């Protein structure tokens, strides 16, 4: 029996030691202190070599921490000077001249001058980062040490914005050939990645760059970003006080996050709905008729879809331009009220009194959405025939194009990027290369006209696209970020993840 007592005593002693120890352990997290900012993200960076992996959206904080961009967006979304102190177009807006800040160095000690900027921009253009094609055809030159010119064949209204996000990131050319360039970044940014204590894909620890040119902008000496892919893990980290700020991927957990005493910040960047891609009717002749596309728009009870699929976190919409766009018009959101009877009449007028069958893709992760879409379309007589192409092929098959229409969640970019992303004849998400002379004319005015002309044309383009029912958007989804009681945040209206410069300690 002695052994049993000894064992029990040992177990109690061990438990006491462990409890004491872990008390010290949780103190070491340091969350809540202004010395360290601890954030959670839902996805880690791909390659830190900007030519291979530079990306914003949910990956922005990792890149922002170690690299500077040429220009910078403030918390209201306005473009401000950063590495470039001034920028100016020539008269026909084919040459952008940037004046660089003097005396900036990369963290390996090499100078950040015009030739380094040119090398970095070329490295991005010639690489395989997701937005590499935005620099296609652009030429970069360094007339002197603090001047960079960007020359393009035709005006690019998105260029200045691009220089404030992934394409504008500047990497030290001295690091291009490093064997570990993809995991050991060299930039001029506010922080330096501590590779020894970081775990690629999971935990990223950064320390403040001692030679940073803009020390006032750096509010924390240390930055930690933990990648938590599981929404439950995010919620546990929040409840246990293991972070100061967290990206909330699952809006259904918002009430629990608020219950833990955290503050919710939100924006709306993505819309979900149908892309009616085959507007010429080459694959599904029915979609070539505008009345059919309009009828599809009237088939959806958008409010009910928003409640069911997003617990109401978002805003119903019938347009693809975001609320921050000059082209956005609130009135357009009531163009196609939910009316299955009227939709059926429109289908009959179009010559389909008995409806038709539409081939679309589905994917198990969004099964509830696909079921509801099929059900609402069947109410007006359209039978949906779903094919699951496999997760890895969803976008590929959509863009092949293999289906005349599809459900999708798409990013709402700034206007010119949006146009070239989903409307222009060569846009990625216009896979049938559908063209309309009116749309082309608007696009030309937006590209070449004065600011006023461009703004008017953007409004008209948006109205026309809604009227022609190129899409059947359902709602914009709320993007959510939460901060603890010790942390202030101004959330960017135009990116999925806040700027690391917009966090500050409350005390």
């Amino acid at each position, binding site marked *: 029996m002695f052994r049993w007592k000894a064992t029990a005593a040992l177990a109690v002693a061990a438990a006491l030691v462990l409890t004491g120890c*872990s008390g010290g352990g949780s103190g*070491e997290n340091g969350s809540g202190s202004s010395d360290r900012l601890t954030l959670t993200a839902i996805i880690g960076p791909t390659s830190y070599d900007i030519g291979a992996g530079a990306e914003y959206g949910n990956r922005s904080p990792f890149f922002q921490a170690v690299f500077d961009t040429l220009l910078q967006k403030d918390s209201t979304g306005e473009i401000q000077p950063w590495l470039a102190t001034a920028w100016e177009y020539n008269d026909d807006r084919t040459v952008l001249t940037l004046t660089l800040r003097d005396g900036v160095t990369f963290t390996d000690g090499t100078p950040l001058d015009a030739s380094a900027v040119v090398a970095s921009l070329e490295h991005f253009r010639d690489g395989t980062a997701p937005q590499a094609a935005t620099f296609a055809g652009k030429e970069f030159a360094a007339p002197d040490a603090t001047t960079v010119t960007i020359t393009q064949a035709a005006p690019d209204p998105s260029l200045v914005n691009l220089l404030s996000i992934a394409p504008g990131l500047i990497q030290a050319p001295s690091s291009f050939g490093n064997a570990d360039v993809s995991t050991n970044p060299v930039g001029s940014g506010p922080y330096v990645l501590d590779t020894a204590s970081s775990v*690629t894909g999971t935990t990223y620890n950064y320390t403040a760059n001692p030679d940073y040119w803009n020390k006032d902008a750096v509010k924390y000496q240390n930055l930690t970003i933990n990648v938590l892919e599981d929404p439950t893990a995010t919620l546990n980290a929040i*409840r246990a006080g293991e972070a100061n700020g967290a990206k909330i991927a699952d809006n259904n957990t918002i009430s629990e996050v608020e219950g833990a005493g955290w503050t919710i910040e939100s924006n709306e960047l993505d819309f979900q709905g149908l892309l009616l891609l085959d507007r010429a009717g080459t694959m599904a002749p029915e979609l070539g008729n505008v009345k059919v596309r309009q009828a599809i728009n009237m088939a959806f009870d958008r409010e009910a879809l928003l409640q069911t699929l997003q617990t109401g976190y978002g805003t119903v919409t019938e347009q693809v331009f975001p609320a921050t766009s000059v082209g956005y018009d609130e009135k357009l959101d009531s163009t196609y009220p939910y009316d299955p009877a009227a939709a059926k009449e429109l289908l009959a007028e179009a010559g389909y009194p008995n409806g038709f069958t539409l081939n679309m893709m589905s994917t198990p992760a969004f099964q509830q959405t696909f079921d509801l879409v099929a059900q609402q379309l069947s109410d007006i007589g359209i039978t949906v025939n779903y094919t699951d192409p496999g997760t890895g092929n969803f*976008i590929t098959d959509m863009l092949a194009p293999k289906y005349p229409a599809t459900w999708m969640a798409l990013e709402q970019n700034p206007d010119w990027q949006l146009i070239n992303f989903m409307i222009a004849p060569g846009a990625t998400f216009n896979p049938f290369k559908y063209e309309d002379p009116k749309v082309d004319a608007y696009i030309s005015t937006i590209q070449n006209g004065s600011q006023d002309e461009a703004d008017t044309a953007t409004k008209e383009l948006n109205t026309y696209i809604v009227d022609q029912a190129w899409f059947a958007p359902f709602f914009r989804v709320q993007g959510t970020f939460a901060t603890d009681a010790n942390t202030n945040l101004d959330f960017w209206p135009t990116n999925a993840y806040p700027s690391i410069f917009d966090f500050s300690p409350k005390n």
Partner: protein
Amino acid sequence: MLAFIVRRLLSGVVLIAVISFLAFTLLYAAGGDIARRILGENATAETVAKKTAELGLNRPLLVQYGDWLTSAVTGNLGRSWFNGELVSVSVSGRLSVTLSIVIGATLVSAILSVLLGVLAARRGGAIDAGVQFLSLVGFAVPGFLIALLLVLVFAVNLGWFKATGYTPLTTSLSGWLASVILPIVALSIGAIATVAQQVRGSVIDATSRDYVRTLRARGLSENSVIYRHVLRNAGGPALAVLAVQFVGLLGGAVIVEQIFAIPGMGQLSVRATTQGDIPVVMGLVIAFAIIVVVVNLLIDLAQAALNPKVRLS
């Protein structure tokens, strides 16, 4: 003995080669357009084509496997397609994390299941029924549910342990304990349930044998009979079950690491497979296969040491 080990190791190598080929071809069959997956929806078709060519994905499957195999044999497992980290670094870095949890869980479950199994077998009656009931509960409740419950009670509410993340042993002992104890407990419970039953059965079976009666008749103390002699005989089957449990725990670690956000092989497996990060998945497959081969070999050796009647030739 040496011939036995060499033979087992050689068959292990063949097994790993076969597994690597099967894994490679299956991954491709399920992979879809990997370049598009890496680049996301923003990339144009041209950029996707460029990335495909850069990764060599436009070559025949057998050529790609041949290339992978030749460099793998020289120790070069390539780099992750999704974050550029060397696969050897990814896998070895996470191996220690997972092994510390899985070995911890194996030790805890080995010790507790022997104690509980012997207790149930010797005492019988209410204690036996109690242990049996606990075993049944431990066996029936899924590990992830236990893990979620443990996080809520001991990390979120009481704040004793970490809810997410991992502190390496080299950084801080207390931090390490705070990050591994809950995962170890979550993983152990199911294993204890299974192995305790096995030990109980073996002990009951052994105590009715003639040699035990002889030992008792010679006046040996009951503790000596049980721990020196009976357990030695009952240990063989229990060890075999424990080996199966160890491999099972590697699988259980996949879910537990996800819940605790611990950067181990389980978490890496989930991410790499869902993304289609073939170099990383292949690295993990090889590592898991090696572990299984080695564990089985060690168990055979341990059984031989426990019971000389088990011959290894």
